[in-house]
Structure formats: C-alpha cells, structure tokens
C-alpha cells in the first residue's frame, strides 16, 4: 500500500555542509500492518515519518501510496490527500486548546465536510471511554485522557494509515499501556495500517514488523 523507493533526505547546514538524515531507504507497508520504526536519537525516525505522511518532502526518492507518488502533489493537494487517507497521533497530543474533546475529534470530519461528524465523534469518544468527558477542554483532561482524545481523533476519519510519533512518550506506564491497547484494538477494528515511531522496545514489539534505523539507514 505504501512504498518507499530510494528515499533520501539531506539538510543543508549553513556554509558548513550537508547532513544526510535519511540515506537510500527502500521498504513497503502492507494494508492493516503495524510497522514499528525504532532507532537511536538522530537516526532519522521522525524525519522518515514526516516524509511518509506527506508532511515533508524527500530530497531524492519517492513515497508511493497505492502507486500514486506524493512528491507529484503540491502542498494543498498533499493536505487533501492527508485528510482523506492519513491521520496522526503526536507525542505532545496537539489538541486545540480552544475546542472541547468532542470538537477536537470532529475536526478531521469537518475538514472532509462530513455531515454526521458529531454523531461519529461521539461514538468514537464512547469507544475510547471518554463519553463523559466530551464537553471538557484539553486543560481539564489528564495527559492519558488527552492522548485518548488524540487517538479518537486519529481514527474517526477511518484513515488508511495512522502515523504515531512516540505516542506514549509523555505518559506514565499505566496510561501508556491503555493508549497502546486502544491503538491496537482500533487498528484491528478499522483495518488501518499503523506506523509507530518509538524508542520503547515494548511498544515496538507490538508491531507486525520493525524497521531499525541508524544514521539514516535501515539496519534491520
């Protein structure tokens, strides 16, 4: 479903030279697969995630989704593409502080002009166990609850692929486990692929496959 072909990312650093963050990567992500991306700090995990999700563009190479190259799309077309096919869970939750939990979950559906957005948002909030917190603002929720809202927001639009960047990085172990279980359950229910960037070996183990990066290259 998602094919990475010959992908490199190079950052220029002033006059001093170039820094190759990702170097000649080639791999595929299958439908409904959980792919864990691991590696030490600075190995290029987050950069790879951003490029796969169309948030950034590679210096060389291609990202193909169902044989369509993302690099052929302009910024707004990529935005449309993301809205229809991808979703995200961030380490720092990234909920809109001026919106309630319900409104935050509705957000992707609103972008897609879905008329039943509220009903669907309510249903998924109930699914993640936060029906009673639907009208609360993010600053009225705990870290674990905020991340569960973020998970609900990610799945509400039934994405083909969900990208998660250190989803449990800001949570205690109990809340982290709860969020991971939720991700696993929802992934199997919705049939989405899940690409998770993580440092945590326990999280990585939950995946169907693991991609290990070191200095921008796949080592395993």
């Amino acid at each position: 479903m998602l094919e990475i072909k010959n992908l490199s990312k190079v950052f220029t650093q002033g006059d001093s030279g170039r820094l190759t963050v990702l170097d000649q990567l080639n791999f595929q992500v299958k439908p409904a697969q959980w792919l864990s991306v691991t590696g030490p700090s600075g190995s290029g995990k987050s950069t790879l995630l951003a490029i796969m999700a169309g948030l950034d563009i590679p210096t060389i190479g291609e990202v193909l989704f169902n044989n369509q190259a993302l690099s052929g799309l302009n910024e707004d077309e990529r935005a449309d593409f993301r809205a229809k096919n991808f979703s995200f869970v961030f380490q720092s939750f990234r909920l809109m502080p001026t919106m309630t939990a319900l409104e935050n979950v509705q957000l992707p559906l609103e972008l897609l002009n879905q008329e039943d957005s509220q009903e669907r948002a309510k249903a998924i909030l109930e699914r993640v166990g936060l029906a009673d917190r639907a009208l609360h603002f993010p600053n009225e929720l705990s870290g674990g609850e905020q991340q569960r809202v973020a998970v609900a927001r990610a799945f509400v639009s039934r994405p083909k692929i969900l990208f998660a960047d250190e989803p449990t990085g800001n949570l205690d172990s109990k809340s982290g486990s709860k969020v991971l279980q939720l991700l696993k359950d929802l992934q199997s229910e919705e049939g989405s692929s899940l690409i998770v960037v993580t440092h945590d070996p326990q999280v990585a183990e939950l995946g169907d496959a693991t991609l290990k990066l070191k200095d921008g290259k796949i080592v395993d």
Partner: protein
Amino acid sequence: MIDRATLFLYKKNRPVTLLPRILLIGSIALGISALVTLKNFSKRIEKTVLQDSKKLLTADLRISSRRPFEEKVYSHLLKMGNQSSDIVRQTDFIGSIILPDSTGSTAMLRAVEGNYPFYGELKTSPQLKIEDLSQEASVIVDKSLRAKGFKLGEKIRIGLLDFKISAFIEEEPQALATVFAVGPRIAFHQKYLESTGLTGVGSRAFHYYLVRTAKDFAVFREEFRKGIPEPHVRIRSPERSSNQSQRIIQNLNSFLSLVALCALFLGAIGIFSVYRSQLYQRLPYDLTLRCIGFSKKQILRSYLLLAAESAALGGLLGYCAGAFLESKVADLAQKMFEVTLSEIPFSSSWLFASAITASSVFISMYFPVIEVLKVPVTEAIRSSQNSTPKLSRKEVFSMFAGILLLILFVVSFDWKMATVFLGAIASIALILNYLGQQGASTLHKFKDKFSFSARIALNSLVRSWSKTRYFVISVGLSILVLLSVLMLGYSLRTQIDLSQRIEAPNLFLLGVQEQQREKISELLSNVEFTPVIQARLLSLKGEDIIEDRLEDDQGVEDDDEKRFLTREYTLTKRSRIQKGEKLSKGDTLFAKGNPNVVRVSLEESFSSRVNLNIGDAFKINLAGVPLEARVDSLRKVDWWSFRPNFFIVLNEEDVGGAPFNFVGSARVSQSELPTLQTRLQKGFPELSVIDGESIALKVSTLLDRLSFAILSLGLFSIAACVLVFVGMLLARQREKLSQIALLKSLGARSPVIIKSLAYEYIFMSFIATLVGVAMSLIVVSLVCLFALKIPFAPPPFWSLLVVSFALPTLLSLIAILLARNSLRSTPADVLRSSDS
C-alpha cells in the same frame, strides 16, 4: 550579589532580547517625551500669558465700561494723582469698513491715544507712534491687508470717515488675542472716533481707560471706588485678565495630556505583551539553566541588569526625543496659530522625565520576568509546557499602578481630573469588555451557520476571551477616542457652517435706529429687525445684588455665577415666542392682564443660574431706569440658531417708552453677500455690518487647527494600539503556530488556515470597532446634548461603515502577514518550529 554567572547570563541575553527592548525603550521614551513636551508647551503659553499679562492689558490696570465714560471718571483719575500721560483712552469694537478696492469687510477696530501701549511693543513699518495718527485721519492696519495687495496711502472708510493707511502693524502687544480675531485689525486715533459715527447708541463698543501706576491694585481700587461707585465701571488687574486665558489653556492642555495618557497606557500594555512573549520564547532555555544549577535569583538578576541597562538608555533617549519635540513646538505654534511663545529656560522637568522614562521601562521589564520565573522547573523535563503561571492580582495591580503613577506625575498634579479620567477609562474598558464578550458569545451561538474556518475562529475568540479582551479593549478605546474627537469637531463645524443652514441669517447690522429701518428694508427685502436695549440686574426676589457687584473688583468676577449677576445684558421686547425657542415653563410667553410690573420671559439656564422661577420678582436697571419685573415664563433657546437670542425677553406692552434700537438680521446668498455688505456700509456708514459667514469660517478654521492638534494625539493612540496588536500577536504566535501545524497535518489546505486566521481577527476587530463606534456615538451625543448644548450631527453613514470594515480588514491583513512564514512552510517545518 552580581556574581560571575549572573554577568554571563546578562551578556548572553542582551542580543536575543534586543528587538523587544528597542520597541519598549523607544515607545516609552517617545510617549513620555510627548507628554513632557505638552506640559512644557502649556508652561510656555502660561508664561506668555502671565509674563505678558501687562502686555495683554498694555497697562498696570484697566478700567472698563460697556458705555462711553462720563467725564467724571477721567477727572477722578487725575484727582487720584495720576498724570494725564499715564492715562490712555481706548475703545474696541467690531465694525464694518470699506477697503481701498471698494469692498466691504468686518474689522476689529481700536481707537487709542497718547502713550499707548505702556507695556509691550507696537512695531509698524514705517515705525509710527499713536500720536502720529492724530495729525490727519490715518490708520495703522495689520499685515494681512498688505498681503492682499493694499498699499500705504490708500484709503479705508470706517463708518462716516475716510482714513489713510499710514503703516502696517508688524508686531503688537496682544499677540495671543490675534488668534481669535475675526477680521483685519485696524487702529486709529481716539480723536476721530466720534466722527466715524460707529459708537453711538446701540453700538457694541468696549470703552477702556488704561492706567500706568505704581500703586498697589487694592489701594488703587479703593481710592477709585470712592469717586466712581457706578457698577458698570469695572477695574481689572493684568493678573485677573490673564486668568481666563490661562484657564482655557490649562483645560485644553489637560485634555490633550489625558488623551496622550490613555494612548501611553495602551502602549505600555502592548510593550508588556511583546516583552512577555519574548521571555516565554526563552523559557525552555531558562528552565534548562535552572535544571543545571542556575538559581532563580541569578536568572532574575541577569534580567534586572538588562532592565537597568534599558532604563538608562530609555532615560537618555527620552531626554533627546523630548528636546527634539520641544524645539519643534514653538515653530508649530507660530505656523498654526501665528503665536510667538515665550522661551523657558532649561527645565528640570526634562531630567524628571528621563527618570520617569527609566522607571517605567524598569517596571515594564521587571514584572514579566517575575511571571516567567514562576514556571516550575519540572516543566523543563516535559516536552509540552502545560503550566500557565499568572501574576497575582497584587502584582498586576502594583505594576499598572506603578506605571500609571509615574505617568500621572508627568501629566498633571490635577488628581481630581486624573481620577475622573482614569475612572472613565476603567468604566469604558469594562463596558467594552462586557459588550465585546456578549457580542462574541452571541456570534458563537450561531456558529453552526458559519463555515468550518469561521467556527475555528469563533472557538478561539470566545474560549480564549481572557487573551482577546486586551485587544478588544485597546482597539475599542482607541477608536472611541479618535472618533469622538472627529465627531465632536464635525458636529461643531456643522453647527457653525452657515452656508449649510439655509434658514440661519448670515448678515447682521448693529445699532440700527428706528428711522433707518425703512431705507435698510429697501436694500435688504428679507431683513428682520429685533429691538434691543441694555440692562443690569439690581435685585433678585427682593435681595439686593449691589454687594456682589462691589466684590466684583476684588476678584469675584472670575466666578462665573457672580459674573452672571453683575454683567450687562442685552434685552429685547416682543409679544410672541420666536423660531428656535420653546416654552419650557408657563402656558404663554406672558400672562395676560395689566400688572404694575414688567412681565418677562427668561431663558431656562439663565433662570436656574440666577435662581428665578415663574412668579418670582426681580429688579432691573433698564437703560438707567430701575424697573420691577416678574417672571412669566421660561424658554428653551437654540443658541446655535445664529438668530439674535436673549436671556431676558420683555413684554413689549410694558416697556413702550424705553429707548430701544435694533439689530437687523438677514439671510443673503453667498454670491450677493460681498456686494450687499459694501452697499450697506456705503449707505449706512454709521452702522456696523457684520458678515456672519466669515466669522463662522474663522471659528471653523480655529476648530480645525485645534482638532488637528487633538488628532495628532489620537494618531499616537492608534500607534499605541498597533503596538498592543503586535504584542498580542507575538504573544499568541506560539499558540497560533501550534494550531497551524495541527491543521496542516490533519490535512487543512492553506486557504482554510488563512480564512480561519482572518475570520478570527475580523471577528475580534469587528466587535471592537463596532462597540467603539457605538460608544463614541453615545459619548459624543451626550457631550453635544449636555455640555455643548448643540444638536448632535452624526457623520455620514458611509464614513462609519468605512471605519467599521476597513479597520478589521487591515488588522486581519497584518495578522496574516505575520503568519505568512508558517503558511508557506511545509507542515513538518511548522511542527518543528512550534516544538522548538
């Protein structure tokens, strides 16, 4: 206390906080300099008025009367030991003249003699003395006539007599008075006054004796009153005469200062926001420093060093900016009002201002640091900082009170006025906050009817009201101040713009006698004649007011209430109410019957000032004859109708024999006005023909110049508002960046994000503008109704519409421009920058 680590931090922080510090120092220095300049400007005018008060009177004291002096006044002055060379007779009046090109004009006329002026200098070209004008009928005229092309030797007709132009006035002692002159100023010798025929019965001349004396004013007055107890003869010292001018200047200065204060206060909020947002951007570094062992005190001290350095720079900059502004003030006064102001020596107020600037900078930089240092150090190890520390109420109060007190020290020591003003600002701010919040909430209720972008904007607007309110209040206040000044000026100009008021007369004839009326009517078919007579109040409800009148000379004349009792009034007689009047008490203008008293109708504000009501009795001196009078009705009068209006109207049946003369008034088309004025002046040279239109124009020009001065401060207020706006945008930048990043990653296109940003600022500024416009309409209509007593002339609807839409659009554009980098970047870049 200041250790090596603190100094290290101070050095490292200097370059990164450069921009906000420049903004902070620059605007506070400029603002305080503007205030001190205003204060010094006012001081210079006061000094001009005070130092030149003798020049204003041109003598040590002045004896005045609204009717020609009896011979005994001059004899008594001589008997008191004054030399004839120390006494000058002066008569001032507005009259009509025929210029050398045979056109008529209204002029400020002065007949003088002898050693005029005793103080100040009368410079003419060629240089002449007043006594030189006695050789033949000649005049000295102001240089505006030279600018019109008139030459020495040409003839000017004043009343019945032709005068030769002998010299042009280059400088005269009463320079400040020239600001209010309604026509060219012309002086001639007293001995020709009677021959002009312009100061007979019914004229509106002011008669003076100017006296040069070494005697103390009180002693002189006592001796003078022994021989001349008549109430209509009044004595005035130079100090007294300058009091009223000073009062006007002080009020104007206070108003200007308080407008500037408002602007400066708003500016301080903006600067505080800018610096605070900068500190929050630096927060992760400061937290890291605290993690690795720097103490809060070390970080605080490093910032305080920075604040002290900025304060010192601010003081210096304030001094330089103020000195520059001060040097421009005199030129501006000369250009705008043709007034030469007195020089004042180097004032300690500049050092004072520099110290105030420095203190304000220090306070504005101290409190944000205190706030930011409240963030717990544990936040350093969390990737998202959820902690939002707040200054305690006590700290917020201390900060604003500190800045306000410092500014108030500069503005004025008039605590009463300052308290009222600040109270008004606080009330208006509260109302703006309430109305703004209600407006936003109302919009939010209908959010489902709006687009996705608009809904995001409305959520942000309503749910972060604590941040939005500063914007709404400051923009609303700025608009309120600006529009109020503009609308007040507009209402006043509309009121006095005779060309737009087709029913208002624009040509007046003073001192018309019974036998002249028919002939004048032949020239002016629509002329209306109003009978007039002079009178004074003698007693009210049986209570003699002589005592009050005698106190007049001891300074009570500056008390408006007392002056109301002792001044001379012009009365009219008739039997019906006239256009522009309305009965406010009483069924008819006068009760029927044939009483033994004179029946009168009083204007309602006059009746309350002299405390007379329907049925009350009082006594008047009508052209020398004491008469008993009774109040039969009260009238509301439109004083801005430009018709002859009166405080007291007599029943014509009761004063048949009194020696009335007439004021003629007519509405003449603008094209006919100069010709008719000339024909009337030639046909009736002994009458004063006043062109109301040109006087209205003069007043309007003066108003425009005053409005300009006030508006300049209004623009300062707009500049302060922009600072608030930028400060707020910067403060919210991080939050907005995060919002943009999230929306982008969720798949929102750029237009959606731009729209949501634009909607947010449009909603916010639209609410602020709308409330500001609405409140300015209310404030101005109240001021017009109760203070100026003129009808409120609302500005054209389109102009309010333009303000209401242009400003929100402009502010939204600025917001989008500020966010343009984030909009152009890839979502990954935005995510990175919002995380860093």
